[in-house]
């Protein structure tokens, strides 16, 4: 019988109350990654309930194939760099963040600045893209350069 990858043996008592084990055919629980809870708190505070809910939905429903098969699953590395950005960037407190999953499995974050102009970032597994309409900025950068991009445009 196929078993979900994170299924574990479950503990049960047999009739004589001695411990025994059996294979579970359904996922019993998910193991959180170290720091995941802290990261979720951060994402919740920055994205708000709606944005966090969308990210949660993307992570849970689009980590496999989706659409008509040409779309790529959400990249865990894109989520990492997205989280790093939210952790370090200084975003306008009143801005309304929108989050999207792209066909390439990347995460896109968008909002309007004080003058109503578009700010958009697309986070991919290796490189990302920043667009700041008010400054005429359009850049693709390696994810290793994220700190520099934040220092240049988001502090």
């Amino acid at each position, binding site marked *: 019988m196929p078993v979900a990858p994170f299924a574990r043996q479950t503990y049960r008592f047999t009739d004589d109350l001695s411990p025994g084990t059996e294979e579970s055919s359904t996922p019993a629980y998910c193991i959180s990654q170290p720091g995941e809870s802290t990261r979720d708190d951060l994402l919740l505070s920055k994205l708000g309930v709606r944005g966090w809910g969308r990210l949660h939905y993307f992570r849970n429903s689009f980590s496999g194939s989706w659409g*008509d098969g040409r779309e790529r699953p959400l990249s865990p590395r894109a989520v990492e760099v997205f989280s790093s950005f939210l952790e370090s960037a200084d975003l306008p407190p009143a801005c309304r963040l929108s989050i999207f999953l792209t066909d390439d499995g990347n995460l896109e974050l968008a909002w309007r600045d004080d003058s109503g102009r578009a700010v*958009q970032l697309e986070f991919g597994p290796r490189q990302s893209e920043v*667009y700041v309409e008010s400054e005429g900025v359009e850049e693709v950068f390696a994810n290793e350069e994220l700190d520099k991009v934040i220092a240049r445009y988001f502090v």
Partner: protein
Amino acid sequence: LAITPLEETWALFRRRVEKPPERTLERIGTIHIAHLQEIGHAHADKPMELTVEAVPLDGYPSHAEIPQAISRGLANKIVAQLRLHDDER
């Protein structure tokens, strides 16, 4: 030259573009090719010669593509100039 009326494009896009529940079709945007090219020419530091090439698909003979790689900034300018249509059914 193949042309698909806007009224028929709704059904066509619902079949081919819409991917519910994550992607639903709310509006369709249209633009004249000449206007598209003007936007490309006027694009900031990187003026572009945009073209539209017919790429007929099975069941969608009027399908066409812009073969040039469009930057995010240029895409935003094009989107801002689209004439938006609501489904009036």
